């Protein structure tokens, strides 16, 4: 879900996604970076992301991902589920 959100913001390559998650989560979330790529490939295989080879800012060959309409729909659905889950947990935790 995080990956989808990252790519939904703007089409980017895998490194940019890693950096964005790192920065935005305030360094809370840090995974083995390489694991990002199987995740990206899984999303691409399922048709939630589309990819394209291009050149990066510093002129190297890189693979750029962007989100597809199906991906956007899935992101919205997952975000909704997440919010519901978070609310539920918060409610449970509030009762002392």
């Amino acid at each position: 879900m995080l990956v989808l959100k990252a790519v939904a913001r703007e089409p980017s390559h895998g490194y940019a996604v890693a950096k964005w998650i790192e920065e935005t989560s305030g360094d809370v979330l840090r995974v083995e970076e390489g694991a990002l790529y199987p995740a990206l490939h899984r999303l691409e295989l399922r048709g939630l992301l589309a990819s394209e080879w291009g050149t990066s800012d510093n002129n190297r060959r890189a693979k750029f991902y962007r989100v597809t309409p199906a991906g956007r729909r899935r992101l919205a659905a997952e975000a909704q589920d997440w919010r519901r889950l978070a609310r539920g947990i918060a409610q449970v935790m509030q009762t002392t």
Partner: protein
Amino acid sequence: MRERWHAIWLRLRTLITRRRLDRDLADEMAFHLHMRAEDARRRGLAPADAAAASRRQFGNPTALRETSRELWTFRWIESFSRDIRLGLRLLMRQPGFTAVAVLTLALGIGATSAIFSFVDGVLLRPLPYPEANRIVLLWEKPPGGLRNGISALNFLDWQTSSTSFSSLTATTVRPMTLGGIDEPTRPRVARVSPSYFDTYGIHPLFGPGFQPDEDQPGRDHVVVLQHKVWVSQFGADSTLPGRAITLDGEAYTVVGVMPDNSPFERGFTQAWRPIAFTPGERTRDFHWLLAVGRLRPGVTIERAQAEMTAIGARIAQQYPDSNKGWSVFVEPFGDQVVSTSLSQGLYVLFGAVAMLLLIGCVNLANLTLARGLARAREVAVRAALGAGRRRLVRQFVTENVVLSLLGGAAGVALGYALMEALRQLLPPGALPREALVAMDGRVLAFAFLVSVSTGVCFGLAPALQATKSDLTATMKEGARGGTSDRGRRRVRAALVITEIALAFVLVAGAGLLVRSLTTLLHEDPGFDDRNVLTMTLPHAGPADAAHLVPYVEDLLAHVQAAPGVTSAALADTLPLQGWGNGMPYQVAGRAAVDRANRQATGFKRVSPAYFQTLGMRVIKGRGLSVEDRSGTPPVTVINKTMAEAVFPGQNPLGQHLLIQQIAPDQPQLGPELPWEVIGVVADENTQGLDQPPSGGMYVPLAQSPYPSLSLVVRSAVRPEAVETAVRQAVHAVDKRLAIADVRLLADLRRESTAQPRLQTALLAAFAALALTVAAIGIYGVMSYSVAQRTREIGIRTALGASGGSVLGMVLGDGLRLVAIGLTLGLGGALALARLLTALLFGVTPGDPEAMAFTLAVLGLVALAACFIPARRAMRLDPLAALRAE
């Protein structure tokens, strides 16, 4: 759901661009690593440290690449293609094994495919007519019988009264003479109702075909030709349709040619003309027609049968003289297409080749087991590296399937050759015209399936065995685990026993057929066929009785006088070709039976010298003589079977048989004549050597003349030498008389056994092959087990065991297996031999001689196969044996 399909689609695309996948994955991760290193460098780390740090943060690129790669490919395709390539490489490295295996498989799969092409073409294929299940056969059903020919008037009544059929046609076949070209030929011409081709649903090309009104006399001189005839006789002349050809001296307009690939091309009939019943042919008591019909859409065969039974009952009521007690029988066309003996024969042959293939499989399983043992280390290493058992088994089985596909490809080529050879050897007319035997897609698909199954079959057990090994034990040197070895030995023993048993069954079956054939060939046909020449005279002169008789007698006199001729006779049918006619009779003085319900007996018209020429013995009374002619009382000689059936325990001489007169120029039967029985003659075989003789009677040609006759001539020396003299004699009487089908009687007799001879030869060949393959297999297993026990034998010999006792030990083990195999084989043979009953003649399925012979042969072969390796064991040098590993 849609996501899954999207994934599959992307994977398919990647399948095509596989090499790029690796590069892309590497590039993508390399980019990330580079960027991370750049970042680190910008923050101040040294380049080497930066690179190291970024790699640490990243994780293991190789593993990650593998994970991604697996996402992007169909894993099973990858592993499959790898297995196949590996398997092929291994096979190339062991050319000896590969050659033997491919040859064994090629023989087995080839033979199976060839026989299957016949089974498929004759038995399994649907009939080649559109909506063939709506085609039916109609018969007149006599009292006490099921199927009988049909009379003209009955047929016409059926046509007008029935509503169940969209077309109903009658057929009858007769050869005619095609004139107008240099060498007249005698095509077989069928007379059919104009709706004939509508019934079968296959229409002629190049022409309108038959019109419905062409069944009237005067409008019926049109003809449709077989494609082959059009090509061979008329050079595929495209102007022929519309023009006339000469048949029997009259002009017939060609109104169509049948298409090239229709079942009619494979049939006996070469041309068709419409049947227009002359007034003389419109009778109810002469049953010379066959009928085929096509059911109207929506009508079931039961409804048609019910309707026809009602019509038949009405006709029986209206015309009791000819039809009382007769009904109609309607059956699906398909039921009569293949004779039981043909289908049984094919199934037996198919069973035989299947067994041959099985024996080959067993051999290969043994070989593969041995190979598996040799690769035990490889298996252990791979298992240690993480290969699951299922994966290993799959790899081994794939290797074997590759091998068997190779064998299958070679087998298809072999099978094609065998199929073509068999097609040439089959006598014409052995297969129904609806059969189409070819190595087509269906047969090839079958061959493919058989190849794959064979590979799995002989590969699975050894693969399971090979992968069961205890890893650590195998990794250590020696590779001599106790339990797995025993398991392997048990499997090998089981395989040897199976081979022996299967080979036994096959050889026993062949033995039975051979004995049956020998009995058949030695069967007394009732006539002496040495030095006898036969020929047919299709139009022996004038059609009316008054002129026919002197003409025929003149003919005989001239032939008799020809040099080299001992004796000559004429008959309306040749030996082994049936009785010619079956006539209902009434014994004078017994209770009168309605004409329609009378028993029928064979009725053959012969000249007086017939019995003498054919060496048939007159048992009682006298034979026919020249004194018996028109004007003198009608006389007949009956055969032994008829005498015993009609006059059991009585003297038939002097009794009278009342039979309606047959006039030579019309099918209408005349008044009853009282034929006096003046003699009894020994039976001649009329139906075929494997049938018992049927009852019948012989009457003098002079008293019942017939214009289409066959000539039999006994010569003093070689009959071929006499042919010219006979021809000259015949033409001296009438130089326009056509002579056809000059054959030796001995050849006719041999041809009647062509099919059983071919079947037996085939089965014997397969059995011999199976025996060879089994022998090689047994020898191989015994040699192998001796080689395995080299050390043990060496020790025994070193410790003082004599050569004889070593021999005894090894041989004893082998013979134990052989004994079990023979017992199982005998049991199996006795059980399965019952399936052969329909093909056997004069031999019971459990024939002790055949079984004993098989036991002896198989026992000897197996003994030899065990003995040779055993002798080698005996001669083993103990030092060399102990050193060997």
